[in-house]
Protein backbone atom coordinates (compact mmCIF):
# COMPACT_ATOMS: atom_id res chain seq x y z
CA UNK A 1 0.00 0.00 0.00
CA UNK A 2 1.18 3.49 -0.61
CA UNK A 3 1.25 6.30 1.84
CA UNK A 4 -1.67 8.71 1.67
CA UNK A 5 -0.58 11.78 -0.28
CA UNK A 6 0.20 14.84 1.79
CA UNK A 7 -2.30 17.53 0.89
CA UNK A 8 -1.31 21.13 0.18
CA UNK A 9 -3.88 22.11 2.75
CA UNK A 10 -2.17 20.18 5.54
CA UNK A 11 1.26 21.43 4.52
CA UNK A 12 0.16 25.06 4.55
CA UNK A 13 -1.65 24.74 7.80
CA UNK A 14 1.17 23.06 9.68
CA UNK A 15 3.72 25.54 8.35
CA UNK A 16 1.57 28.49 9.30
CA UNK A 17 0.76 27.21 12.74
CA UNK A 18 4.40 26.44 13.51
CA UNK A 19 5.33 29.94 12.39
CA UNK A 20 2.88 31.25 14.94
CA UNK A 21 4.26 28.98 17.61
CA UNK A 22 1.34 26.60 18.00
CA UNK A 23 1.18 22.92 17.24
CA UNK A 24 -1.84 20.87 16.30
CA UNK A 25 -1.89 18.97 19.55
CA UNK A 26 -1.47 22.05 21.71
CA UNK A 27 2.17 21.52 22.68
CA UNK A 28 4.73 24.29 22.56
CA UNK A 29 7.42 24.03 19.91
CA UNK A 30 10.03 22.43 22.11
CA UNK A 31 7.76 20.28 24.20
CA UNK A 32 7.68 16.49 23.97
CA UNK A 33 4.79 14.13 24.36
CA UNK A 34 4.18 12.04 27.44
CA UNK A 35 6.19 8.89 27.76
CA UNK A 36 4.59 5.81 29.28
CA UNK A 37 6.54 2.62 29.89
CA UNK A 38 4.95 -0.75 30.58
CA UNK A 39 6.82 -3.93 31.38
CA UNK A 40 5.98 -7.53 30.68
CA UNK A 41 6.24 -10.23 33.28
CA UNK A 42 9.63 -11.44 32.03
CA UNK A 43 12.93 -9.60 32.24
CA UNK A 44 13.96 -7.22 29.52
CA UNK A 45 10.65 -6.72 27.79
CA UNK A 46 8.85 -3.42 27.64
CA UNK A 47 6.36 -1.38 25.65
CA UNK A 48 6.83 2.37 25.32
CA UNK A 49 4.14 4.85 24.36
CA UNK A 50 5.30 8.24 23.11
CA UNK A 51 1.94 9.89 22.57
CA UNK A 52 0.34 7.53 20.08
CA UNK A 53 3.62 6.08 18.79
CA UNK A 54 4.08 2.64 20.23
CA UNK A 55 7.17 0.44 20.29
CA UNK A 56 7.85 -2.92 21.94
CA UNK A 57 11.36 -4.02 22.85
CA UNK A 58 12.65 -7.36 24.03
CA UNK A 59 16.16 -8.21 25.14
CA UNK A 60 17.27 -11.83 24.99
CA UNK A 61 20.64 -13.45 25.46
CA UNK A 62 22.36 -16.60 24.40
CA UNK A 63 25.88 -17.93 24.49
CA UNK A 64 28.03 -17.75 21.39
CA UNK A 65 31.60 -17.57 20.22
CA UNK A 66 32.98 -14.06 20.37
CA UNK A 67 34.30 -12.11 17.41
CA UNK A 68 37.90 -12.87 16.67
CA UNK A 69 38.79 -9.20 16.81
CA UNK A 70 37.33 -8.91 20.30
CA UNK A 71 37.78 -12.22 22.05
CA UNK A 72 36.90 -11.12 25.55
CA UNK A 73 33.86 -9.00 24.88
CA UNK A 74 30.24 -9.94 24.64
CA UNK A 75 28.15 -8.90 21.66
CA UNK A 76 25.15 -6.68 21.27
CA UNK A 77 22.87 -6.79 18.29
CA UNK A 78 19.97 -4.40 17.72
CA UNK A 79 17.25 -5.31 15.26
CA UNK A 80 14.40 -2.99 14.33
CA UNK A 81 11.26 -4.32 12.70
CA UNK A 82 8.53 -2.08 11.41
CA UNK A 83 5.40 -4.12 11.88
CA UNK A 84 2.99 -3.60 8.97
CA UNK A 85 0.32 -2.61 11.47
CA UNK A 86 2.30 0.49 12.37
CA UNK A 87 1.39 2.28 9.17
CA UNK A 88 -0.29 1.47 5.91
CA UNK A 89 2.83 1.86 3.85
CA UNK A 90 5.00 -0.46 5.92
CA UNK A 91 5.69 -3.73 4.19
CA UNK A 92 6.56 -6.85 6.07
CA UNK A 93 9.72 -8.63 5.05
CA UNK A 94 11.69 -6.03 3.18
CA UNK A 95 14.02 -3.81 5.12
CA UNK A 96 12.79 -0.37 4.22
CA UNK A 97 14.85 2.78 4.37
CA UNK A 98 13.25 3.94 7.58
CA UNK A 99 13.98 0.75 9.46
CA UNK A 100 17.61 0.79 8.36
CA UNK A 101 17.86 4.40 9.46
CA UNK A 102 16.47 3.65 12.89
CA UNK A 103 18.67 0.57 13.26
CA UNK A 104 21.75 2.57 12.42
CA UNK A 105 20.81 5.39 14.80
CA UNK A 106 20.35 2.96 17.64
CA UNK A 107 23.59 1.16 16.84
CA UNK A 108 25.47 4.43 16.96
CA UNK A 109 23.82 5.43 20.17
CA UNK A 110 24.15 2.18 22.08
CA UNK A 111 26.84 0.06 20.51
CA UNK A 112 29.34 2.57 19.21
CA UNK A 113 29.07 4.68 22.31
CA UNK A 114 29.99 1.69 24.45
CA UNK A 115 27.24 2.23 26.92
CA UNK A 116 27.10 -1.43 27.94
CA UNK A 117 30.01 -3.10 29.66
CA UNK A 118 30.60 -5.86 27.13
CA UNK A 119 33.63 -7.26 28.91
CA UNK A 120 31.48 -8.32 31.83
CA UNK A 121 29.55 -10.47 29.37
CA UNK A 122 32.55 -12.67 28.72
CA UNK A 123 32.37 -16.17 30.15
CA UNK A 124 35.40 -17.91 28.72
CA UNK A 125 37.63 -15.68 26.62
CA UNK A 126 37.80 -16.61 22.98
CA UNK A 127 35.22 -19.36 23.37
CA UNK A 128 31.99 -18.37 25.06
CA UNK A 129 30.44 -14.99 25.56
CA UNK A 130 26.96 -13.68 26.07
CA UNK A 131 25.36 -12.40 22.91
CA UNK A 132 22.64 -9.86 23.63
CA UNK A 133 19.94 -9.33 21.14
CA UNK A 134 17.54 -6.41 21.27
CA UNK A 135 14.45 -6.81 19.11
CA UNK A 136 12.44 -3.69 18.57
CA UNK A 137 9.01 -3.85 17.00
CA UNK A 138 7.23 -0.69 16.02
CA UNK A 139 3.51 -1.17 16.47
CA UNK A 140 2.02 2.25 15.78
CA UNK A 141 3.56 5.12 13.83
CA UNK A 142 2.64 8.59 14.93
CA UNK A 143 5.98 10.21 14.35
CA UNK A 144 9.35 10.12 16.05
CA UNK A 145 10.02 6.42 15.83
CA UNK A 146 13.69 6.89 16.66
CA UNK A 147 13.06 8.48 20.04
CA UNK A 148 10.47 5.94 21.00
CA UNK A 149 12.71 3.07 19.92
CA UNK A 150 15.63 4.48 21.87
CA UNK A 151 13.56 4.84 25.03
CA UNK A 152 12.37 1.28 24.61
CA UNK A 153 15.92 0.03 24.06
CA UNK A 154 17.24 1.82 27.09
CA UNK A 155 14.40 0.67 29.31
CA UNK A 156 14.71 -2.91 28.11
CA UNK A 157 18.50 -2.98 28.56
CA UNK A 158 18.31 -1.49 32.05
CA UNK A 159 15.53 -3.87 32.98
CA UNK A 160 17.13 -6.99 31.55
CA UNK A 161 18.68 -9.58 33.84
CA UNK A 162 20.81 -12.38 32.50
CA UNK A 163 21.22 -15.84 34.04
CA UNK A 164 24.08 -16.37 36.43
CA UNK A 165 26.94 -18.54 35.19
CA UNK A 166 29.51 -20.51 37.12
CA UNK A 167 32.38 -22.35 35.55
CA UNK A 168 34.16 -25.33 36.96
CA UNK A 169 37.21 -25.76 34.80
CA UNK A 170 36.01 -26.85 31.39
CA UNK A 171 32.24 -26.71 31.71
CA UNK A 172 30.07 -23.77 32.41
CA UNK A 173 26.79 -24.11 34.21
CA UNK A 174 24.03 -21.68 33.36
CA UNK A 175 21.80 -21.39 36.40
CA UNK A 176 18.07 -21.06 35.85
CA UNK A 177 16.33 -18.17 37.54
CA UNK A 178 14.90 -20.42 40.22
CA UNK A 179 18.36 -21.54 41.37
CA UNK A 180 20.31 -18.34 41.34
CA UNK A 181 19.14 -14.79 41.03
CA UNK A 182 19.68 -13.32 37.58
CA UNK A 183 22.13 -10.46 37.16
CA UNK A 184 21.46 -7.06 35.61
CA UNK A 185 23.61 -5.62 32.86
CA UNK A 186 26.20 -3.00 33.65
CA UNK A 187 25.54 0.23 31.84
CA UNK A 188 28.26 2.87 31.91
CA UNK A 189 25.95 5.61 30.83
CA UNK A 190 22.36 5.98 29.73
CA UNK A 191 21.88 7.53 26.30
CA UNK A 192 18.59 8.45 24.64
CA UNK A 193 17.86 9.95 21.26
CA UNK A 194 16.06 13.27 20.94
CA UNK A 195 14.71 14.30 17.56
CA UNK A 196 13.86 17.63 16.00
CA UNK A 197 12.23 18.68 12.77
CA UNK A 198 12.83 22.02 11.08
CA UNK A 199 10.24 23.64 8.85
CA UNK A 200 10.40 25.97 5.89
CA UNK A 201 10.06 29.02 8.07
CA UNK A 202 13.09 28.01 10.09
CA UNK A 203 11.24 27.07 13.27
CA UNK A 204 12.22 23.83 14.87
CA UNK A 205 9.97 21.52 16.84
CA UNK A 206 10.89 18.72 19.18
CA UNK A 207 9.28 15.29 19.10
CA UNK A 208 7.36 15.66 15.83
CA UNK A 209 4.14 13.83 15.09
CA UNK A 210 3.59 11.92 11.88
CA UNK A 211 2.12 14.90 10.08
CA UNK A 212 4.86 17.25 11.22
CA UNK A 213 7.51 14.80 10.05
CA UNK A 214 6.02 14.74 6.59
CA UNK A 215 5.80 18.50 6.29
CA UNK A 216 9.23 19.21 7.72
CA UNK A 217 12.31 20.07 5.76
CA UNK A 218 15.19 18.84 7.90
CA UNK A 219 15.57 16.28 10.62
CA UNK A 220 18.05 16.26 13.47
CA UNK A 221 18.55 13.45 15.96
CA UNK A 222 20.88 13.82 18.92
CA UNK A 223 21.91 10.97 21.16
CA UNK A 224 22.54 12.40 24.62
CA UNK A 225 23.23 10.67 27.90
CA UNK A 226 22.54 11.61 31.47
CA UNK A 227 26.02 13.15 31.85
CA UNK A 228 25.14 15.69 29.15
CA UNK A 229 27.50 14.04 26.67
CA UNK A 230 26.70 13.72 23.01
CA UNK A 231 26.70 10.10 21.88
CA UNK A 232 25.44 10.32 18.36
CA UNK A 233 24.30 12.91 15.89
CA UNK A 234 22.32 12.62 12.72
CA UNK A 235 21.23 15.43 10.45
CA UNK A 236 19.24 14.86 7.32
CA UNK A 237 17.40 16.93 4.77
CA UNK A 238 13.96 15.59 3.98
CA UNK A 239 13.52 17.74 0.87
CA UNK A 240 15.98 18.78 -1.75
CA UNK A 241 14.70 22.29 -2.16
CA UNK A 242 16.18 24.31 0.63
CA UNK A 243 18.73 24.57 3.39
CA UNK A 244 18.21 25.64 6.99
CA UNK A 245 20.27 27.67 9.33
CA UNK A 246 22.17 26.34 12.28
CA UNK A 247 19.71 24.11 14.08
CA UNK A 248 22.11 22.22 16.27
CA UNK A 249 23.32 25.05 18.43
CA UNK A 250 19.80 26.40 18.77
CA UNK A 251 18.30 23.28 20.25
CA UNK A 252 21.17 21.44 21.89
CA UNK A 253 20.50 22.95 25.29
CA UNK A 254 16.85 22.04 25.29
CA UNK A 255 17.73 18.61 24.02
CA UNK A 256 20.21 18.00 26.80
CA UNK A 257 17.84 19.11 29.52
CA UNK A 258 15.09 16.98 28.13
CA UNK A 259 17.38 13.97 27.75
CA UNK A 260 18.54 14.19 31.35
CA UNK A 261 14.98 14.38 32.56
CA UNK A 262 13.91 11.53 30.32
CA UNK A 263 16.71 9.24 31.46
CA UNK A 264 15.72 9.98 35.03
CA UNK A 265 12.16 8.97 34.26
CA UNK A 266 13.25 5.76 32.59
CA UNK A 267 15.59 4.82 35.42
CA UNK A 268 12.86 5.39 37.97
CA UNK A 269 10.37 3.30 36.08
CA UNK A 270 12.86 0.46 35.65
CA UNK A 271 14.00 0.53 39.27
CA UNK A 272 10.47 0.57 40.52
CA UNK A 273 9.56 -2.44 38.44
CA UNK A 274 12.71 -4.37 39.34
CA UNK A 275 12.14 -3.79 43.03
CA UNK A 276 8.55 -4.83 42.77
CA UNK A 277 9.65 -8.01 41.07
CA UNK A 278 12.11 -8.84 43.84
CA UNK A 279 9.54 -8.17 46.49
CA UNK A 280 7.00 -10.09 44.44
CA UNK A 281 4.61 -7.23 44.95
CA UNK A 282 2.43 -6.83 41.90
CA UNK A 283 0.11 -4.19 43.13
CA UNK A 284 1.36 -0.91 41.77
CA UNK A 285 3.44 -1.96 38.85
CA UNK A 286 3.23 -0.83 35.30
CA UNK A 287 2.67 -4.10 33.57
CA UNK A 288 0.93 -4.69 30.28
CA UNK A 289 -2.26 -5.15 32.18
CA UNK A 290 -2.17 -1.52 33.19
CA UNK A 291 -1.83 -0.60 29.56
CA UNK A 292 -5.37 -1.75 29.13
CA UNK A 293 -6.98 0.97 31.17
CA UNK A 294 -9.93 -0.36 32.99
CA UNK A 295 -12.13 2.69 32.89
CA UNK A 296 -12.20 3.23 29.14
CA UNK A 297 -15.28 2.53 27.11
CA UNK A 298 -13.57 0.15 24.76
CA UNK A 299 -11.99 -2.08 27.39
CA UNK A 300 -13.26 -5.21 28.95
CA UNK A 301 -11.68 -6.90 31.89
CA UNK A 302 -12.80 -10.10 33.41
CA UNK A 303 -11.57 -12.03 36.37
CA UNK A 304 -10.73 -15.67 36.23
CA UNK A 305 -13.63 -17.20 34.43
CA UNK A 306 -14.63 -20.31 36.26
CA UNK A 307 -16.73 -22.78 34.43
CA UNK A 308 -19.22 -24.91 36.30
CA UNK A 309 -18.68 -28.44 35.02
CA UNK A 310 -19.00 -29.82 38.52
CA UNK A 311 -20.47 -33.00 37.24
CA UNK A 312 -17.52 -33.81 35.04
CA UNK A 313 -15.95 -35.88 37.76
CA UNK A 314 -19.08 -38.01 37.94
CA UNK A 315 -19.16 -38.47 34.23
CA UNK A 316 -15.65 -39.78 34.13
CA UNK A 317 -16.69 -42.63 36.36
CA UNK A 318 -19.06 -43.87 33.70
CA UNK A 319 -17.38 -46.52 31.67
CA UNK A 320 -18.68 -45.87 28.25
CA UNK A 321 -16.99 -42.56 27.97
CA UNK A 322 -19.07 -41.59 25.01
CA UNK A 323 -19.71 -37.99 24.18
CA UNK A 324 -23.39 -38.48 23.71
CA UNK A 325 -23.54 -40.00 27.14
CA UNK A 326 -21.96 -36.92 28.55
CA UNK A 327 -24.41 -34.79 26.76
CA UNK A 328 -27.18 -36.53 28.55
CA UNK A 329 -25.56 -35.58 31.80
CA UNK A 330 -24.92 -32.09 30.68
CA UNK A 331 -28.41 -31.46 29.51
CA UNK A 332 -29.61 -32.53 32.89
CA UNK A 333 -27.05 -30.15 34.25
CA UNK A 334 -28.63 -27.40 32.33
CA UNK A 335 -31.51 -27.29 34.63
CA UNK A 336 -29.06 -26.98 37.44
CA UNK A 337 -26.87 -24.44 35.76
CA UNK A 338 -29.53 -22.06 34.67
CA UNK A 339 -30.46 -20.93 38.11
CA UNK A 340 -26.76 -20.86 38.67
CA UNK A 341 -26.32 -17.89 36.42
CA UNK A 342 -27.09 -15.41 39.09
CA UNK A 343 -25.52 -17.44 41.81
CA UNK A 344 -22.31 -16.82 43.62
CA UNK A 345 -20.67 -19.71 41.92
CA UNK A 346 -19.61 -17.37 39.21
CA UNK A 347 -17.59 -14.33 40.00
CA UNK A 348 -19.77 -11.22 39.74
CA UNK A 349 -17.63 -9.22 37.33
CA UNK A 350 -18.02 -11.71 34.56
CA UNK A 351 -21.13 -11.76 32.52
CA UNK A 352 -21.73 -15.40 32.07
CA UNK A 353 -25.02 -16.39 30.65
CA UNK A 354 -24.25 -19.96 30.29
CA UNK A 355 -27.53 -21.50 29.43
CA UNK A 356 -28.12 -19.52 26.29
CA UNK A 357 -28.26 -21.88 23.43
CA UNK A 358 -25.39 -23.88 24.85
CA UNK A 359 -26.82 -27.34 25.01
CA UNK A 360 -28.80 -26.94 21.81
CA UNK A 361 -25.88 -26.39 19.58
CA UNK A 362 -23.88 -29.23 21.02
CA UNK A 363 -25.91 -31.66 19.04
CA UNK A 364 -24.55 -30.06 15.94
CA UNK A 365 -21.02 -30.63 17.08
CA UNK A 366 -21.03 -34.11 15.76
CA UNK A 367 -21.58 -32.78 12.30
CA UNK A 368 -18.34 -30.88 12.46
CA UNK A 369 -15.22 -31.67 10.52
CA UNK A 370 -14.29 -34.51 12.82
CA UNK A 371 -16.41 -36.95 10.93
CA UNK A 372 -13.54 -39.28 10.40
CA UNK A 373 -12.78 -39.52 14.05
CA UNK A 374 -16.46 -39.93 14.79
CA UNK A 375 -16.54 -42.96 12.66
CA UNK A 376 -13.64 -44.44 14.54
CA UNK A 377 -15.26 -43.89 17.85
CA UNK A 378 -18.47 -45.51 16.85
CA UNK A 379 -16.65 -48.77 16.42
CA UNK A 380 -15.34 -48.45 19.91
CA UNK A 381 -18.79 -47.79 21.28
CA UNK A 382 -20.30 -50.79 19.65
CA UNK A 383 -18.07 -53.00 21.64
CA UNK A 384 -19.34 -51.48 24.82
CA UNK A 385 -22.83 -50.96 26.09
CA UNK A 386 -25.92 -51.47 24.06
CA UNK A 387 -27.40 -48.29 25.32
CA UNK A 388 -25.23 -46.27 23.10
CA UNK A 389 -26.22 -47.80 19.80
CA UNK A 390 -28.56 -44.97 18.98
CA UNK A 391 -25.70 -42.62 19.47
CA UNK A 392 -23.51 -44.48 17.06
CA UNK A 393 -25.83 -43.80 14.20
CA UNK A 394 -25.82 -40.22 15.18
CA UNK A 395 -22.08 -39.97 15.18
CA UNK A 396 -21.30 -41.64 11.94
CA UNK A 397 -24.28 -40.60 9.89
CA UNK A 398 -24.52 -37.51 7.82
CA UNK A 399 -28.25 -37.55 8.16
CA UNK A 400 -27.91 -36.84 11.78
CA UNK A 401 -30.39 -34.07 11.79
CA UNK A 402 -33.47 -36.19 11.81
CA UNK A 403 -32.21 -38.43 14.50
CA UNK A 404 -30.99 -35.54 16.53
CA UNK A 405 -34.41 -34.12 16.97
CA UNK A 406 -35.44 -37.35 18.54
CA UNK A 407 -32.43 -37.33 20.74
CA UNK A 408 -33.01 -33.94 22.16
CA UNK A 409 -36.63 -34.62 22.84
CA UNK A 410 -35.65 -37.70 24.71
CA UNK A 411 -32.99 -36.01 26.71
CA UNK A 412 -34.41 -32.65 27.37
CA UNK A 413 -37.86 -33.54 28.40
CA UNK A 414 -38.21 -30.86 30.95
CA UNK A 415 -35.94 -28.29 29.40
CA UNK A 416 -37.49 -25.85 27.01
CA UNK A 417 -35.34 -24.95 24.08
CA UNK A 418 -35.63 -21.28 23.21
CA UNK A 419 -34.45 -21.49 19.65
CA UNK A 420 -34.99 -23.88 16.79
CA UNK A 421 -32.47 -26.64 16.71
CA UNK A 422 -32.05 -27.18 13.02
CA UNK A 423 -32.15 -24.96 10.05
Amino acid at each position, binding site marked *: *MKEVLLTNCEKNFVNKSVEQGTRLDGRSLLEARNVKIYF*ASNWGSCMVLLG*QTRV*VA*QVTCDIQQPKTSRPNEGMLHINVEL*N*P*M*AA*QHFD*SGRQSEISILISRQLEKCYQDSKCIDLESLCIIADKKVWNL*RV*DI*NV*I*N*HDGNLIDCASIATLAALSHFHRPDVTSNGEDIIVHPFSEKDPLPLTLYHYPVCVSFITFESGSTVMDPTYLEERVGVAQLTLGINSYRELCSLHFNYLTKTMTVEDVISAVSNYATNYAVQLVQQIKEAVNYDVEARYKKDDRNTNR*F*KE*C*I*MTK*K*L*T*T*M*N*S*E*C*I*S*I*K*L*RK*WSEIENIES*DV*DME*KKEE*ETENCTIIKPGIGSAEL*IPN*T*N*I*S*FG*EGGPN*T*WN*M*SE*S*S*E*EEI*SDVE*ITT*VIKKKENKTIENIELNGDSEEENIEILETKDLMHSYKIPMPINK
Partner: protein
Amino acid sequence: MDMSEETPQSEYILRPMNCELNQLSMPDGSAMLMQGNTAVIAGIYGPVEAKLQKMIYDKASVEVSYSPIKGPTKVDDRMTEMYIKETCEAAIIVTFHPATAICINVQELEDSGGMLACTINAACLALINAGIPMKFTIAAINCMIQKDSEDIILDPDNIQLQEAKAEFTFAFDSMDKNVICCYTTGCFTETEFLKTMDRCKQASQYVFDFYRNLVKKYANVI
Protein backbone atom coordinates in the same frame (compact mmCIF):
# COMPACT_ATOMS: atom_id res chain seq x y z
CA MET B 1 -8.12 -6.54 39.81
CA ASP B 2 -6.67 -9.58 41.57
CA MET B 3 -6.06 -12.97 40.12
CA SER B 4 -8.51 -15.27 41.80
CA GLU B 5 -7.25 -18.06 43.99
CA GLU B 6 -6.87 -21.47 42.46
CA THR B 7 -9.90 -23.49 43.43
CA PRO B 8 -9.63 -27.23 43.88
CA GLN B 9 -11.17 -27.68 40.46
CA SER B 10 -8.59 -25.46 38.83
CA GLU B 11 -8.85 -27.23 35.52
CA TYR B 12 -12.14 -25.54 34.87
CA ILE B 13 -10.86 -22.02 35.08
CA LEU B 14 -9.97 -19.78 32.18
CA ARG B 15 -7.32 -17.19 32.93
CA PRO B 16 -8.45 -13.57 33.34
CA MET B 17 -9.09 -11.95 30.01
CA ASN B 18 -8.42 -8.25 29.50
CA CYS B 19 -8.97 -6.52 26.25
CA GLU B 20 -8.92 -3.06 24.81
CA LEU B 21 -10.16 -2.22 21.36
CA ASN B 22 -9.04 0.61 19.16
CA GLN B 23 -5.83 1.26 21.02
CA LEU B 24 -3.75 2.01 17.94
CA SER B 25 -4.48 5.12 15.93
CA MET B 26 -3.21 3.99 12.53
CA PRO B 27 -4.87 0.61 11.80
CA ASP B 28 -8.55 0.44 10.86
CA GLY B 29 -9.18 -1.92 13.72
CA SER B 30 -6.99 -3.03 16.59
CA ALA B 31 -7.26 -5.10 19.72
CA MET B 32 -4.89 -5.74 22.59
CA LEU B 33 -5.81 -8.95 24.35
CA MET B 34 -4.35 -10.48 27.48
CA GLN B 35 -5.25 -13.96 28.67
CA GLY B 36 -3.46 -14.29 31.95
CA ASN B 37 0.07 -13.13 31.15
CA THR B 38 -0.08 -14.00 27.48
CA ALA B 39 -0.48 -10.71 25.64
CA VAL B 40 -1.01 -10.06 21.97
CA ILE B 41 -1.85 -6.99 19.92
CA ALA B 42 -3.59 -7.28 16.56
CA GLY B 43 -4.02 -4.55 13.94
CA ILE B 44 -6.11 -4.75 10.79
CA TYR B 45 -6.14 -2.76 7.58
CA GLY B 46 -9.01 -3.52 5.30
CA PRO B 47 -10.39 -3.51 2.79
CA VAL B 48 -7.41 -1.92 1.06
CA GLU B 49 -5.90 -2.13 -2.37
CA ALA B 50 -4.37 -5.51 -3.02
CA LYS B 51 -1.08 -6.07 -4.79
CA LEU B 52 -1.56 -7.33 -8.32
CA GLN B 53 -0.04 -10.73 -7.66
CA LYS B 54 -2.22 -11.34 -4.66
CA MET B 55 -5.41 -9.88 -6.05
CA ILE B 56 -8.36 -12.27 -6.44
CA TYR B 57 -10.95 -10.81 -8.77
CA ASP B 58 -14.06 -11.94 -6.90
CA LYS B 59 -12.91 -12.17 -3.30
CA ALA B 60 -10.95 -10.25 -0.75
CA SER B 61 -7.52 -11.72 -0.17
CA VAL B 62 -6.69 -12.19 3.49
CA GLU B 63 -3.02 -11.54 4.32
CA VAL B 64 -1.71 -12.35 7.75
CA SER B 65 1.56 -11.32 9.31
CA TYR B 66 2.60 -12.61 12.73
CA SER B 67 5.64 -11.09 14.44
CA PRO B 68 7.24 -12.82 17.37
CA ILE B 69 8.79 -10.73 20.09
CA LYS B 70 12.15 -12.47 20.02
CA GLY B 71 14.18 -12.70 16.91
CA PRO B 72 13.22 -12.84 13.25
CA THR B 73 10.20 -14.77 12.03
CA LYS B 74 10.71 -18.51 11.85
CA VAL B 75 8.89 -21.40 10.25
CA ASP B 76 6.68 -21.86 13.33
CA ASP B 77 5.51 -18.30 12.96
CA ARG B 78 4.58 -18.90 9.36
CA MET B 79 2.55 -21.86 10.54
CA THR B 80 0.76 -19.65 13.05
CA GLU B 81 0.07 -17.21 10.24
CA MET B 82 -1.47 -20.00 8.22
CA TYR B 83 -3.74 -21.05 11.08
CA ILE B 84 -4.88 -17.47 11.62
CA LYS B 85 -5.46 -17.00 7.90
CA GLU B 86 -7.52 -20.15 7.48
CA THR B 87 -9.57 -19.41 10.58
CA CYS B 88 -10.25 -15.81 9.63
CA GLU B 89 -11.04 -16.65 6.03
CA ALA B 90 -13.74 -18.98 7.28
CA ALA B 91 -15.29 -16.13 9.22
CA ILE B 92 -14.86 -13.15 6.88
CA ILE B 93 -17.38 -12.73 4.09
CA VAL B 94 -14.77 -12.34 1.37
CA THR B 95 -17.22 -11.82 -1.48
CA PHE B 96 -18.33 -8.45 -0.14
CA HIS B 97 -15.05 -6.81 -1.15
CA PRO B 98 -13.70 -8.32 -4.33
CA ALA B 99 -10.21 -7.44 -5.54
CA THR B 100 -9.18 -6.00 -2.22
CA ALA B 101 -6.92 -7.14 0.58
CA ILE B 102 -7.59 -7.48 4.26
CA CYS B 103 -4.30 -7.33 6.15
CA ILE B 104 -4.23 -8.88 9.59
CA ASN B 105 -1.08 -8.12 11.59
CA VAL B 106 -0.45 -9.70 14.95
CA GLN B 107 2.39 -8.85 17.30
CA GLU B 108 3.27 -11.17 20.13
CA LEU B 109 3.91 -9.21 23.30
CA GLU B 110 4.41 -12.00 25.77
CA ASP B 111 3.99 -15.75 25.51
CA SER B 112 2.90 -17.37 28.70
CA GLY B 113 1.08 -20.35 27.21
CA GLY B 114 -1.87 -20.52 24.85
CA MET B 115 -0.41 -18.24 22.20
CA LEU B 116 -2.33 -19.54 19.20
CA ALA B 117 -5.66 -19.26 20.98
CA CYS B 118 -4.84 -15.74 22.12
CA THR B 119 -3.83 -14.62 18.63
CA ILE B 120 -6.98 -16.03 17.05
CA ASN B 121 -9.14 -14.30 19.65
CA ALA B 122 -7.28 -11.03 19.23
CA ALA B 123 -7.60 -11.24 15.45
CA CYS B 124 -11.33 -11.81 15.77
CA LEU B 125 -11.71 -8.83 18.10
CA ALA B 126 -9.71 -6.63 15.78
CA LEU B 127 -11.89 -7.73 12.85
CA ILE B 128 -14.98 -6.78 14.83
CA ASN B 129 -13.43 -3.40 15.62
CA ALA B 130 -12.53 -2.80 11.99
CA GLY B 131 -16.09 -3.49 10.85
CA ILE B 132 -15.07 -6.19 8.41
CA PRO B 133 -18.11 -8.24 7.40
CA MET B 134 -18.08 -11.58 9.18
CA LYS B 135 -20.35 -14.57 9.07
CA PHE B 136 -19.76 -15.32 12.73
CA THR B 137 -17.28 -14.58 15.48
CA ILE B 138 -14.53 -16.97 16.48
CA ALA B 139 -13.42 -18.09 19.92
CA ALA B 140 -10.31 -20.17 20.41
CA ILE B 141 -9.60 -22.16 23.54
CA ASN B 142 -6.37 -23.83 24.54
CA CYS B 143 -6.25 -26.87 26.78
CA MET B 144 -3.90 -29.64 27.75
CA ILE B 145 -3.84 -33.13 29.21
CA GLN B 146 -1.50 -33.51 32.12
CA LYS B 147 1.10 -36.25 32.00
CA ASP B 148 0.56 -38.10 35.24
CA SER B 149 -2.91 -37.29 36.43
CA GLU B 150 -4.54 -37.31 32.97
CA ASP B 151 -6.45 -34.22 34.02
CA ILE B 152 -7.75 -31.90 31.39
CA ILE B 153 -6.67 -28.36 32.14
CA LEU B 154 -8.26 -25.47 30.28
CA ASP B 155 -6.18 -22.45 29.30
CA PRO B 156 -2.93 -23.56 30.90
CA ASP B 157 -0.01 -21.21 31.43
CA ASN B 158 3.66 -21.89 30.72
CA ILE B 159 4.34 -23.59 34.01
CA GLN B 160 1.42 -25.99 33.65
CA LEU B 161 2.33 -26.70 30.04
CA GLN B 162 5.66 -28.18 31.08
CA GLU B 163 3.76 -31.15 32.49
CA ALA B 164 1.64 -31.64 29.42
CA LYS B 165 1.25 -34.90 27.60
CA ALA B 166 -0.79 -33.28 24.86
CA GLU B 167 -1.87 -29.74 24.03
CA PHE B 168 -4.93 -28.73 22.03
CA THR B 169 -6.16 -25.48 20.55
CA PHE B 170 -9.69 -25.41 19.16
CA ALA B 171 -11.42 -22.50 17.48
CA PHE B 172 -15.22 -22.48 17.32
CA ASP B 173 -17.73 -20.36 15.47
CA SER B 174 -20.40 -18.47 17.34
CA MET B 175 -23.42 -19.79 15.46
CA ASP B 176 -23.28 -23.56 15.68
CA LYS B 177 -20.12 -24.02 17.74
CA ASN B 178 -18.54 -25.98 14.94
CA VAL B 179 -14.81 -26.48 15.04
CA ILE B 180 -13.08 -24.15 12.60
CA CYS B 181 -9.52 -24.75 13.58
CA CYS B 182 -7.82 -27.50 15.47
CA TYR B 183 -4.17 -27.63 16.46
CA THR B 184 -2.72 -30.41 18.55
CA THR B 185 0.68 -31.53 19.79
CA GLY B 186 1.51 -34.64 21.77
CA CYS B 187 -0.22 -38.02 22.02
CA PHE B 188 -3.76 -38.66 23.06
CA THR B 189 -6.56 -41.15 22.40
CA GLU B 190 -9.68 -40.46 20.39
CA THR B 191 -11.84 -40.35 23.46
CA GLU B 192 -9.50 -37.86 25.07
CA PHE B 193 -9.64 -35.77 21.92
CA LEU B 194 -13.42 -35.66 21.87
CA LYS B 195 -13.56 -35.02 25.58
CA THR B 196 -11.25 -32.04 25.36
CA MET B 197 -13.09 -30.77 22.30
CA ASP B 198 -16.33 -30.78 24.22
CA ARG B 199 -14.88 -28.98 27.19
CA CYS B 200 -13.35 -26.38 24.96
CA LYS B 201 -16.69 -26.00 23.22
CA GLN B 202 -18.37 -25.24 26.50
CA ALA B 203 -15.64 -22.86 27.49
CA SER B 204 -15.91 -21.04 24.18
CA GLN B 205 -19.32 -19.75 25.16
CA TYR B 206 -17.60 -17.62 27.78
CA VAL B 207 -15.32 -16.09 25.22
CA PHE B 208 -18.30 -15.25 22.99
CA ASP B 209 -20.05 -13.65 25.93
CA PHE B 210 -16.90 -11.67 26.65
CA TYR B 211 -16.95 -10.31 23.10
CA ARG B 212 -20.59 -9.44 23.33
CA ASN B 213 -20.20 -7.62 26.61
CA LEU B 214 -17.27 -5.69 25.24
CA VAL B 215 -19.28 -4.50 22.26
CA LYS B 216 -22.27 -3.73 24.46
CA LYS B 217 -20.11 -1.43 26.50
CA TYR B 218 -19.20 0.95 23.71
CA ALA B 219 -21.83 0.34 21.04
CA ASN B 220 -24.37 2.78 22.37
CA VAL B 221 -21.97 5.64 22.82
CA ILE B 222 -19.70 5.62 19.80
